[in-house]
Protein backbone atom coordinates (compact mmCIF):
# COMPACT_ATOMS: atom_id res chain seq x y z
CA UNK A 1 0.00 0.00 0.00
CA UNK A 2 1.22 3.47 -0.88
CA UNK A 3 2.54 5.50 2.06
CA UNK A 4 0.46 8.56 2.93
CA UNK A 5 2.15 11.93 2.59
CA UNK A 6 1.07 15.37 3.73
CA UNK A 7 0.66 16.68 0.17
CA UNK A 8 -0.97 13.65 -1.42
CA UNK A 9 -4.14 14.24 -3.40
CA UNK A 10 -5.93 10.95 -4.00
CA UNK A 11 -9.58 9.95 -4.15
CA UNK A 12 -10.15 10.64 -0.45
CA UNK A 13 -8.72 14.14 -0.74
CA UNK A 14 -10.83 14.84 -3.84
CA UNK A 15 -14.02 13.83 -1.99
CA UNK A 16 -13.21 15.73 1.21
CA UNK A 17 -12.13 18.85 -0.69
CA UNK A 18 -15.49 18.80 -2.44
CA UNK A 19 -17.38 18.21 0.82
CA UNK A 20 -15.41 20.96 2.59
CA UNK A 21 -16.03 23.39 -0.25
CA UNK A 22 -19.74 22.59 -0.41
CA UNK A 23 -20.10 22.92 3.38
CA UNK A 24 -18.25 26.23 3.36
CA UNK A 25 -20.49 27.46 0.55
CA UNK A 26 -23.69 26.29 2.27
CA UNK A 27 -22.76 27.74 5.68
CA UNK A 28 -21.77 31.05 4.07
CA UNK A 29 -25.08 31.13 2.25
CA UNK A 30 -26.92 30.23 5.47
CA UNK A 31 -25.22 33.05 7.34
CA UNK A 32 -26.23 35.45 4.58
CA UNK A 33 -29.83 34.40 4.15
CA UNK A 34 -31.13 32.74 7.31
CA UNK A 35 -32.10 34.62 10.40
CA UNK A 36 -29.03 33.39 12.23
CA UNK A 37 -27.71 35.83 14.80
CA UNK A 38 -24.51 35.96 12.80
CA UNK A 39 -26.40 37.42 9.88
CA UNK A 40 -27.02 40.69 11.61
CA UNK A 41 -23.45 40.98 12.72
CA UNK A 42 -20.97 40.98 9.86
CA UNK A 43 -18.13 40.20 12.25
CA UNK A 44 -19.51 36.67 12.71
CA UNK A 45 -18.83 34.31 9.83
CA UNK A 46 -18.76 30.84 11.37
CA UNK A 47 -18.29 29.14 7.99
CA UNK A 48 -14.58 30.06 7.91
CA UNK A 49 -13.89 27.32 10.47
CA UNK A 50 -14.71 24.70 7.81
CA UNK A 51 -11.63 25.07 5.53
CA UNK A 52 -9.41 25.39 8.60
CA UNK A 53 -10.80 22.20 10.12
CA UNK A 54 -10.74 20.29 6.82
CA UNK A 55 -7.09 21.32 6.37
CA UNK A 56 -6.21 20.00 9.83
CA UNK A 57 -8.17 16.79 9.36
CA UNK A 58 -7.33 15.93 5.74
CA UNK A 59 -4.23 17.89 4.73
CA UNK A 60 -3.22 21.19 3.16
CA UNK A 61 -4.60 20.60 -0.35
CA UNK A 62 -8.01 19.73 1.09
CA UNK A 63 -7.86 22.86 3.25
CA UNK A 64 -6.85 25.00 0.27
CA UNK A 65 -9.54 23.71 -2.08
CA UNK A 66 -12.22 23.80 0.62
CA UNK A 67 -11.42 27.47 1.16
CA UNK A 68 -10.87 28.46 -2.47
CA UNK A 69 -13.77 26.60 -4.07
CA UNK A 70 -16.00 27.06 -0.99
CA UNK A 71 -15.65 30.82 -1.02
CA UNK A 72 -16.36 30.78 -4.74
CA UNK A 73 -19.48 28.67 -4.16
CA UNK A 74 -20.68 30.95 -1.35
CA UNK A 75 -20.30 33.97 -3.63
CA UNK A 76 -22.02 32.14 -6.50
CA UNK A 77 -24.94 31.11 -4.29
CA UNK A 78 -25.31 34.67 -3.06
CA UNK A 79 -24.84 36.03 -6.59
CA UNK A 80 -21.82 38.14 -5.65
CA UNK A 81 -19.67 37.19 -8.65
CA UNK A 82 -16.09 35.96 -8.66
CA UNK A 83 -13.46 37.53 -6.40
CA UNK A 84 -10.32 35.54 -7.19
CA UNK A 85 -8.02 37.32 -4.71
CA UNK A 86 -10.38 36.55 -1.81
CA UNK A 87 -10.86 32.98 -3.02
CA UNK A 88 -7.08 32.63 -2.93
CA UNK A 89 -6.96 34.12 0.59
CA UNK A 90 -9.63 31.72 1.81
CA UNK A 91 -7.66 28.89 0.25
CA UNK A 92 -4.57 29.92 2.21
CA UNK A 93 -6.69 30.10 5.34
CA UNK A 94 -7.34 26.37 4.92
CA UNK A 95 -3.92 25.41 3.60
CA UNK A 96 -1.87 26.82 6.47
CA UNK A 97 -3.63 24.95 9.32
CA UNK A 98 -3.39 21.91 7.03
CA UNK A 99 0.39 21.95 7.37
CA UNK A 100 0.01 20.30 10.78
CA UNK A 101 -2.26 17.51 9.50
CA UNK A 102 0.62 15.02 9.62
CA UNK A 103 1.48 15.74 13.23
CA UNK A 104 -1.99 15.29 14.72
CA UNK A 105 -2.14 12.05 16.67
CA UNK A 106 -5.44 12.52 18.46
CA UNK A 107 -8.01 15.16 17.62
CA UNK A 108 -9.00 15.61 21.26
CA UNK A 109 -5.48 15.73 22.63
CA UNK A 110 -4.76 19.10 24.31
CA UNK A 111 -1.39 19.55 22.57
CA UNK A 112 -2.84 18.86 19.14
CA UNK A 113 -5.66 21.32 19.75
CA UNK A 114 -3.20 23.96 20.94
CA UNK A 115 -1.02 23.42 17.87
CA UNK A 116 -4.09 23.63 15.67
CA UNK A 117 -5.13 26.90 17.33
CA UNK A 118 -1.71 28.44 16.65
CA UNK A 119 -1.94 27.48 12.97
CA UNK A 120 -5.54 28.70 12.80
CA UNK A 121 -4.33 32.14 13.91
CA UNK A 122 -1.46 32.14 11.41
CA UNK A 123 -3.75 30.86 8.65
CA UNK A 124 -6.49 33.40 9.31
CA UNK A 125 -4.05 36.30 9.42
CA UNK A 126 -1.95 35.35 6.37
CA UNK A 127 -5.05 34.23 4.49
CA UNK A 128 -6.65 37.65 4.88
CA UNK A 129 -3.41 39.63 4.55
CA UNK A 130 -2.64 38.32 1.04
CA UNK A 131 -5.91 39.45 -0.64
CA UNK A 132 -5.87 42.69 1.35
CA UNK A 133 -2.41 43.46 -0.07
CA UNK A 134 -3.48 42.32 -3.55
CA UNK A 135 -6.21 44.96 -3.39
CA UNK A 136 -3.48 47.65 -3.36
CA UNK A 137 -2.57 47.22 -7.06
CA UNK A 138 -6.05 46.03 -8.02
CA UNK A 139 -8.10 48.81 -6.43
CA UNK A 140 -5.44 51.49 -6.09
CA UNK A 141 -5.82 51.79 -2.34
CA UNK A 142 -2.97 52.47 0.05
CA UNK A 143 -1.63 50.14 2.72
CA UNK A 144 -3.59 51.88 5.51
CA UNK A 145 -6.89 51.35 3.74
CA UNK A 146 -5.93 47.76 2.90
CA UNK A 147 -5.14 47.08 6.54
CA UNK A 148 -8.00 49.03 8.16
CA UNK A 149 -10.67 48.41 5.53
CA UNK A 150 -9.95 44.80 4.65
CA UNK A 151 -7.35 43.02 6.76
CA UNK A 152 -8.31 44.01 10.32
CA UNK A 153 -12.06 43.25 10.20
CA UNK A 154 -11.67 40.08 8.13
CA UNK A 155 -8.51 38.79 9.84
CA UNK A 156 -9.72 39.35 13.39
CA UNK A 157 -13.22 37.93 12.92
CA UNK A 158 -11.90 34.88 11.05
CA UNK A 159 -9.36 34.27 13.81
CA UNK A 160 -12.06 34.39 16.50
CA UNK A 161 -14.39 32.14 14.48
CA UNK A 162 -11.60 29.64 13.89
CA UNK A 163 -10.33 29.68 17.46
CA UNK A 164 -13.77 28.81 18.85
CA UNK A 165 -15.23 26.46 16.26
CA UNK A 166 -12.18 24.47 15.09
CA UNK A 167 -11.55 22.78 18.50
CA UNK A 168 -15.26 21.89 18.75
CA UNK A 169 -15.10 20.28 15.30
CA UNK A 170 -11.82 18.52 16.15
CA UNK A 171 -13.23 16.91 19.29
CA UNK A 172 -16.39 15.84 17.42
CA UNK A 173 -14.28 14.43 14.58
CA UNK A 174 -12.18 12.37 16.98
CA UNK A 175 -15.10 9.99 17.52
CA UNK A 176 -15.84 9.81 13.79
CA UNK A 177 -12.19 9.14 12.92
CA UNK A 178 -11.99 6.39 15.55
CA UNK A 179 -15.15 4.78 14.16
CA UNK A 180 -14.00 4.84 10.56
CA UNK A 181 -10.54 3.58 11.52
CA UNK A 182 -8.77 6.26 9.44
Amino acid at each position, binding site marked *: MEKKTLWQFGTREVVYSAIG*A*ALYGVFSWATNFLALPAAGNISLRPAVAIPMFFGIAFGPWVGFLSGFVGNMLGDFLS*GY*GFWWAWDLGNGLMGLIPGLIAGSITSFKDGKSILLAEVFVIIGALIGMLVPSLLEIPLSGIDI*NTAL*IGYFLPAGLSNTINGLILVPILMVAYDAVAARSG*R
Partner: protein
Amino acid sequence: MLVTWRYRERGSFLETFDPRARWFFSFFVLFSIVFFWDIRILLGFFGLVVFQYILSKLTWKETRRAWIFMLFFIVIIVGLNALISGRAGPPSVLQGTHTYWEGSLKVPLINWTIRINLTMEKVFFAITQIVRMLSMAMLFMIIPFTIDPRTYGITFSGMGLPDRVAFTMDLAFRFVPTLARDFVTTLDAQKARGYEVERIEGGIISQLRKLAPLVVPVTMGAIVNGEDITNAMDLRCFGIRKRTWIDALQYRTRDYVMIASGGLIFATSFFVKVVLNYGSFWMPEWFLNLVPI
Protein backbone atom coordinates in the same frame (compact mmCIF):
# COMPACT_ATOMS: atom_id res chain seq x y z
CA MET B 1 -36.29 26.08 1.94
CA LEU B 2 -34.11 25.14 -0.98
CA VAL B 3 -30.74 26.45 -1.95
CA THR B 4 -30.80 27.48 -5.57
CA TRP B 5 -28.13 28.48 -8.01
CA ARG B 6 -28.45 31.89 -9.57
CA TYR B 7 -28.20 30.40 -13.04
CA ARG B 8 -31.24 29.87 -15.20
CA GLU B 9 -31.56 29.70 -18.94
CA ARG B 10 -32.32 33.17 -20.24
CA GLY B 11 -31.72 32.51 -23.91
CA SER B 12 -29.21 35.33 -24.02
CA PHE B 13 -26.58 35.73 -26.72
CA LEU B 14 -23.87 35.46 -24.05
CA GLU B 15 -25.00 31.96 -23.08
CA THR B 16 -24.31 30.70 -26.60
CA PHE B 17 -20.57 31.00 -25.97
CA ASP B 18 -18.41 28.21 -24.58
CA PRO B 19 -17.87 28.88 -20.84
CA ARG B 20 -14.11 28.42 -21.31
CA ALA B 21 -14.06 31.21 -23.87
CA ARG B 22 -15.94 33.45 -21.45
CA TRP B 23 -13.53 32.79 -18.58
CA PHE B 24 -10.51 33.41 -20.83
CA PHE B 25 -12.04 36.62 -22.14
CA SER B 26 -12.90 37.83 -18.63
CA PHE B 27 -9.38 37.23 -17.35
CA PHE B 28 -7.82 38.94 -20.38
CA VAL B 29 -10.01 42.01 -19.78
CA LEU B 30 -9.34 41.95 -16.02
CA PHE B 31 -5.56 41.98 -16.50
CA SER B 32 -5.93 44.70 -19.13
CA ILE B 33 -7.89 46.94 -16.75
CA VAL B 34 -5.20 46.53 -14.10
CA PHE B 35 -2.70 48.36 -16.37
CA PHE B 36 -4.57 51.66 -16.41
CA TRP B 37 -5.46 54.65 -14.25
CA ASP B 38 -6.51 56.94 -17.09
CA ILE B 39 -10.27 57.41 -16.78
CA ARG B 40 -10.66 57.86 -20.55
CA ILE B 41 -9.34 54.33 -21.14
CA LEU B 42 -11.14 52.95 -18.10
CA LEU B 43 -14.43 54.32 -19.38
CA GLY B 44 -13.82 52.31 -22.56
CA PHE B 45 -13.47 49.14 -20.49
CA PHE B 46 -16.50 50.15 -18.43
CA GLY B 47 -18.50 50.46 -21.66
CA LEU B 48 -17.37 47.00 -22.74
CA VAL B 49 -18.38 45.51 -19.38
CA VAL B 50 -21.76 47.27 -19.46
CA PHE B 51 -22.29 45.92 -22.99
CA GLN B 52 -21.54 42.41 -21.72
CA TYR B 53 -23.96 42.97 -18.84
CA ILE B 54 -26.73 44.04 -21.23
CA LEU B 55 -26.09 40.95 -23.35
CA SER B 56 -26.59 38.76 -20.28
CA LYS B 57 -30.29 39.80 -20.02
CA LEU B 58 -30.08 40.05 -16.23
CA THR B 59 -32.81 41.91 -14.41
CA TRP B 60 -32.55 44.32 -11.49
CA LYS B 61 -34.63 41.97 -9.33
CA GLU B 62 -32.15 39.15 -9.83
CA THR B 63 -29.04 41.19 -9.22
CA ARG B 64 -30.20 43.72 -6.62
CA ARG B 65 -28.45 41.99 -3.75
CA ALA B 66 -25.18 41.71 -5.68
CA TRP B 67 -25.33 45.40 -6.62
CA ILE B 68 -25.91 46.47 -3.03
CA PHE B 69 -22.99 44.33 -1.85
CA MET B 70 -20.70 45.59 -4.60
CA LEU B 71 -21.58 49.28 -4.24
CA PHE B 72 -21.38 49.14 -0.44
CA PHE B 73 -17.83 47.78 -0.57
CA ILE B 74 -16.68 50.15 -3.28
CA VAL B 75 -18.08 53.20 -1.51
CA ILE B 76 -16.63 52.18 1.87
CA ILE B 77 -13.18 51.38 0.51
CA VAL B 78 -12.92 54.37 -1.83
CA GLY B 79 -14.33 56.62 0.89
CA LEU B 80 -11.84 55.34 3.46
CA ASN B 81 -9.02 55.73 0.99
CA ALA B 82 -9.88 59.21 -0.22
CA LEU B 83 -10.98 60.74 3.07
CA ILE B 84 -9.23 59.09 5.97
CA SER B 85 -6.14 57.58 4.50
CA GLY B 86 -5.50 59.32 1.19
CA ARG B 87 -1.98 58.10 0.66
CA ALA B 88 -2.63 56.04 -2.43
CA GLY B 89 -2.19 57.10 -6.01
CA PRO B 90 0.48 58.77 -8.09
CA PRO B 91 2.46 61.84 -6.90
CA SER B 92 0.13 64.18 -8.79
CA VAL B 93 -2.69 63.02 -6.51
CA LEU B 94 -0.71 62.98 -3.31
CA GLN B 95 0.83 66.41 -3.85
CA GLY B 96 -2.42 67.98 -5.04
CA THR B 97 -2.92 71.52 -3.77
CA HIS B 98 -6.48 72.27 -4.91
CA THR B 99 -8.10 71.79 -1.53
CA TYR B 100 -11.84 71.18 -1.67
CA TRP B 101 -12.43 70.66 2.03
CA GLU B 102 -10.26 70.55 5.10
CA GLY B 103 -11.18 69.48 8.59
CA SER B 104 -10.64 67.00 11.33
CA LEU B 105 -12.55 64.11 12.81
CA LYS B 106 -12.26 63.08 16.42
CA VAL B 107 -12.60 59.37 17.08
CA PRO B 108 -14.60 58.95 20.28
CA LEU B 109 -13.23 56.90 23.20
CA ILE B 110 -9.61 56.94 22.00
CA ASN B 111 -9.51 60.68 21.30
CA TRP B 112 -7.70 60.11 18.04
CA THR B 113 -7.89 63.09 15.71
CA ILE B 114 -7.83 62.42 11.99
CA ARG B 115 -6.92 65.36 9.79
CA ILE B 116 -8.71 65.32 6.47
CA ASN B 117 -7.42 67.23 3.50
CA LEU B 118 -9.70 66.51 0.59
CA THR B 119 -8.19 67.88 -2.60
CA MET B 120 -9.76 67.91 -6.06
CA GLU B 121 -6.99 65.56 -7.15
CA LYS B 122 -8.10 63.04 -4.53
CA VAL B 123 -11.75 63.44 -5.53
CA PHE B 124 -10.96 62.73 -9.18
CA PHE B 125 -8.74 59.80 -8.21
CA ALA B 126 -11.68 58.42 -6.17
CA ILE B 127 -13.97 58.77 -9.21
CA THR B 128 -11.39 56.92 -11.34
CA GLN B 129 -11.13 54.24 -8.67
CA ILE B 130 -14.91 53.76 -8.65
CA VAL B 131 -14.99 53.33 -12.44
CA ARG B 132 -12.09 50.86 -12.29
CA MET B 133 -13.42 48.80 -9.37
CA LEU B 134 -16.93 48.75 -10.79
CA SER B 135 -15.60 47.53 -14.16
CA MET B 136 -13.67 44.69 -12.50
CA ALA B 137 -16.61 43.69 -10.28
CA MET B 138 -19.21 43.81 -13.09
CA LEU B 139 -16.96 41.77 -15.34
CA PHE B 140 -17.32 38.73 -13.08
CA MET B 141 -20.65 39.52 -11.45
CA ILE B 142 -22.57 37.96 -14.33
CA ILE B 143 -20.68 34.63 -14.16
CA PRO B 144 -22.87 32.85 -11.54
CA PHE B 145 -26.01 34.06 -13.30
CA THR B 146 -25.03 33.04 -16.81
CA ILE B 147 -22.87 29.89 -16.64
CA ASP B 148 -24.55 26.57 -15.90
CA PRO B 149 -23.06 25.14 -12.66
CA ARG B 150 -23.14 21.65 -14.17
CA THR B 151 -20.42 22.67 -16.60
CA TYR B 152 -17.80 23.97 -14.15
CA GLY B 153 -15.91 20.65 -13.89
CA ILE B 154 -15.54 20.14 -17.62
CA THR B 155 -14.89 23.88 -18.10
CA PHE B 156 -11.95 24.01 -15.70
CA SER B 157 -10.64 20.67 -16.94
CA GLY B 158 -10.76 22.11 -20.45
CA MET B 159 -8.88 25.19 -19.27
CA GLY B 160 -5.95 23.06 -18.16
CA LEU B 161 -6.65 22.32 -14.49
CA PRO B 162 -5.66 18.80 -13.37
CA ASP B 163 -8.50 16.27 -13.60
CA ARG B 164 -8.66 15.73 -9.86
CA VAL B 165 -9.00 19.45 -9.12
CA ALA B 166 -11.62 19.88 -11.85
CA PHE B 167 -13.51 16.88 -10.48
CA THR B 168 -13.32 18.39 -6.98
CA MET B 169 -15.08 21.48 -8.30
CA ASP B 170 -17.64 19.38 -10.12
CA LEU B 171 -18.37 17.31 -7.00
CA ALA B 172 -18.55 20.40 -4.78
CA PHE B 173 -21.21 21.94 -7.01
CA ARG B 174 -23.15 18.65 -6.91
CA PHE B 175 -22.90 18.33 -3.11
CA VAL B 176 -24.33 21.79 -2.41
CA PRO B 177 -28.06 20.97 -2.73
CA THR B 178 -27.67 17.78 -0.63
CA LEU B 179 -25.72 19.48 2.13
CA ALA B 180 -28.06 22.46 2.14
CA ARG B 181 -30.97 20.04 2.59
CA ASP B 182 -29.09 18.33 5.46
CA PHE B 183 -28.48 21.74 7.02
CA VAL B 184 -32.15 22.67 6.90
CA THR B 185 -33.20 19.23 8.24
CA THR B 186 -30.74 19.62 11.13
CA LEU B 187 -31.98 23.13 11.81
CA ASP B 188 -35.58 21.88 11.97
CA ALA B 189 -34.61 18.91 14.16
CA GLN B 190 -32.75 21.14 16.61
CA LYS B 191 -35.64 23.58 16.69
CA ALA B 192 -37.96 20.68 17.54
CA ARG B 193 -35.69 19.96 20.52
CA GLY B 194 -36.05 23.53 21.73
CA TYR B 195 -32.97 25.07 20.10
CA GLU B 196 -33.87 28.68 19.36
CA VAL B 197 -31.58 29.82 16.62
CA GLU B 198 -33.25 33.20 16.43
CA ARG B 199 -32.57 33.84 20.08
CA ILE B 200 -28.92 32.99 20.48
CA GLU B 201 -27.65 35.60 22.89
CA GLY B 202 -24.47 36.55 24.70
CA GLY B 203 -21.07 37.72 23.55
CA ILE B 204 -19.36 36.72 20.31
CA ILE B 205 -17.69 33.66 21.87
CA SER B 206 -20.91 32.48 23.47
CA GLN B 207 -22.88 33.01 20.23
CA LEU B 208 -20.36 31.06 18.19
CA ARG B 209 -20.30 28.17 20.65
CA LYS B 210 -24.08 28.00 20.52
CA LEU B 211 -23.89 27.50 16.75
CA ALA B 212 -22.16 24.16 17.34
CA PRO B 213 -25.46 22.16 17.46
CA LEU B 214 -25.99 23.21 13.85
CA VAL B 215 -22.46 23.14 12.44
CA VAL B 216 -21.20 19.91 14.06
CA PRO B 217 -23.94 17.42 13.03
CA VAL B 218 -24.01 18.63 9.41
CA THR B 219 -20.22 18.53 9.11
CA MET B 220 -19.80 15.15 10.78
CA GLY B 221 -22.68 13.65 8.79
CA ALA B 222 -21.05 14.83 5.57
CA ILE B 223 -17.69 13.37 6.62
CA VAL B 224 -19.22 9.97 7.42
CA ASN B 225 -20.99 9.93 4.03
CA GLY B 226 -17.72 10.95 2.41
CA GLU B 227 -16.18 7.62 3.38
CA ASP B 228 -18.81 5.78 1.34
CA ILE B 229 -18.31 8.07 -1.64
CA THR B 230 -14.53 7.56 -1.45
CA ASN B 231 -14.96 3.79 -1.35
CA ALA B 232 -17.38 3.84 -4.26
CA MET B 233 -15.00 5.95 -6.33
CA ASP B 234 -12.02 3.76 -5.43
CA LEU B 235 -13.96 0.66 -6.44
CA ARG B 236 -14.57 2.30 -9.81
CA CYS B 237 -10.81 2.97 -10.14
CA PHE B 238 -11.09 6.76 -9.97
CA GLY B 239 -7.92 8.51 -11.03
CA ILE B 240 -6.25 5.59 -12.78
CA ARG B 241 -6.61 7.12 -16.23
CA LYS B 242 -7.59 10.49 -17.60
CA ARG B 243 -11.32 10.73 -17.03
CA THR B 244 -14.04 11.48 -19.50
CA TRP B 245 -16.97 13.78 -18.79
CA ILE B 246 -20.64 13.18 -19.43
CA ASP B 247 -20.99 16.59 -21.11
CA ALA B 248 -18.64 17.66 -23.85
CA LEU B 249 -17.71 21.22 -24.68
CA GLN B 250 -16.92 22.12 -28.25
CA TYR B 251 -15.32 25.36 -29.35
CA ARG B 252 -17.06 27.07 -32.23
CA THR B 253 -15.91 29.94 -34.41
CA ARG B 254 -17.55 32.55 -32.16
CA ASP B 255 -15.63 31.14 -29.16
CA TYR B 256 -12.31 31.49 -30.97
CA VAL B 257 -13.30 35.03 -31.90
CA MET B 258 -14.09 35.81 -28.26
CA ILE B 259 -10.77 34.41 -26.99
CA ALA B 260 -8.85 36.19 -29.75
CA SER B 261 -10.62 39.47 -28.93
CA GLY B 262 -9.66 39.09 -25.28
CA GLY B 263 -6.07 38.32 -26.26
CA LEU B 264 -5.98 41.32 -28.58
CA ILE B 265 -7.33 43.62 -25.86
CA PHE B 266 -4.66 42.37 -23.47
CA ALA B 267 -1.82 42.65 -26.03
CA THR B 268 -2.90 46.19 -26.98
CA SER B 269 -3.17 47.20 -23.32
CA PHE B 270 0.28 45.76 -22.64
CA PHE B 271 1.73 47.65 -25.61
CA VAL B 272 0.04 50.93 -24.69
CA LYS B 273 1.10 50.81 -21.05
CA VAL B 274 4.48 49.07 -21.09
CA VAL B 275 5.90 50.13 -24.47
CA LEU B 276 4.25 53.52 -24.98
CA ASN B 277 4.08 54.25 -21.25
CA TYR B 278 0.60 55.70 -21.63
CA GLY B 279 -2.41 55.26 -19.38
CA SER B 280 -1.28 56.58 -16.01
CA PHE B 281 -3.54 58.78 -13.89
CA TRP B 282 -5.07 61.63 -15.86
CA MET B 283 -7.26 64.51 -14.76
CA PRO B 284 -8.88 67.22 -16.87
CA GLU B 285 -7.85 70.81 -16.15
CA TRP B 286 -11.45 71.97 -15.88
CA PHE B 287 -12.00 69.69 -12.92
CA LEU B 288 -9.43 71.59 -10.85
CA ASN B 289 -11.28 74.83 -11.54
CA LEU B 290 -14.36 73.48 -9.81
CA VAL B 291 -12.79 74.23 -6.43
CA PRO B 292 -15.13 76.59 -4.56
CA ILE B 293 -13.40 79.88 -3.83
